[in-house]
């Protein structure tokens, strides 16, 4: 897990931490069921307060991304594929809306967009 906290970012520290862990889980960098560093180890490495890492883990657990087993540690949530898929679908939706907005602004038609999408699917063999 490669967490880098930016000092110059406007995003609150615990938020940065959460986002990066979430990303790592969604992208598969952290596998389902993999043991995450303890809140103390994470705090030591990123030079962040342990209260912050704890808060990040607590919120990630509430959101279903990790599961904490008392005495053992925190694990990337296994079997929460529904949740992950939903999160990913949401991402797709967001990106499509972005593409739509940019396209419309320069006058791209629905047909053109469909064609671009067809090409994409063909090129990548799916």
């Amino acid at each position: 897990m490669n967490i880098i906290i930016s000092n110059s970012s406007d995003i609150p520290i615990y938020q940065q931490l959460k986002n990066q862990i979430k990303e790592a889980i969604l992208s598969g960098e952290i596998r389902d069921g993999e043991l995450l560093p303890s809140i103390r180890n994470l705090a030591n490495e990123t030079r962040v307060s342990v209260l912050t890492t704890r808060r990040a883990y607590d919120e990630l657990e509430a959101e279903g991304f990790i599961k904490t087993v008392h005495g053992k540690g925190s694990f990337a949530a296994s079997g929460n594929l529904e949740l992950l898929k939903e999160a990913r679908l949401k991402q797709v939706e967001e990106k499509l809306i972005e593409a739509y907005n940019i396209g419309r602004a320069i006058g791209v038609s629905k047909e053109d967009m469909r064609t671009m999408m067809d090409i994409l699917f063909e090129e990548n063999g799916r």
Partner: protein
Amino acid sequence: MDYALEIKGLEKCYSKGNKVLKGIDIKIEEGIVAGFIGMNGAGKTTTIKSILGLVVPNAGEIKIFGKSFKENEKEIKNRIGIVFDNGYLYEDLKLSEMKQIFAAAYTKWDEDNYKKYIKNFNLNEKQKVKELSKGMKMKFSLALALSHHADLLIMDEPTSGLDPKIRKEFLDIIREFIIDVGKTVFFSTHITTDLDKIADQIIMLNAGEVIFNKDKDILIDEHALVKGDKTILTNDNRKWFVALEERGFSFEGLTNQRERVRQEMKQALCERPTIEDIMVAYMGR
């Protein structure tokens, strides 16, 4: 929530009119590294001495590991590791003799652990305490403090006067200590850069009162160094600043309402402050 240290309403007067502590309330959870900052004379050392029984407070209650200090003094002291700025070690004794005094006092003295630290720190036990440099004295004090399975490490200015290399080694040792579950560290310091790197919680004392007691990251997220053109200051937004310096055509200040300043003073430049920036700003009030 288990608190390693709870201080309620601590007051101390040294002579008529000289109230050094004016009602201190501090809570430190287990597993936390808490840093205690403030000017000289703010009351940090007096607070620490009150915790250890070296100073008798006029009022207030102290609980360590959830137990009343007064009633469980010996048992509690057995679980505390102490490091003082001056060491307070017997100058004319050899290190090995100084160790004897410690080993006999603590029920859980661990000779193997002690020997490991002595070896890692390159200390020669046959030397006398007074022959050690300041840095080595601190390391020796640490070796003693960390060799009896203490759960709470209390330190008063442990790194003052030490060069950056030794301070880095000190921080590494603390990081290693705190990895075990249930260990807590509480130390006072002037060297805020050390706290930037290692503290979880920051407590600032000024003139005997607690000015703030916060999670380090929240503290830094809430505050910002703000710079900008003097013309954007108004009577309203001046109130958002803890400290404000107005110059010829520009201003510079520290706000404790970073989000607000970011949203409503868009022409100003906001930067992340260091703990020192924050401390200096509050001291000036």
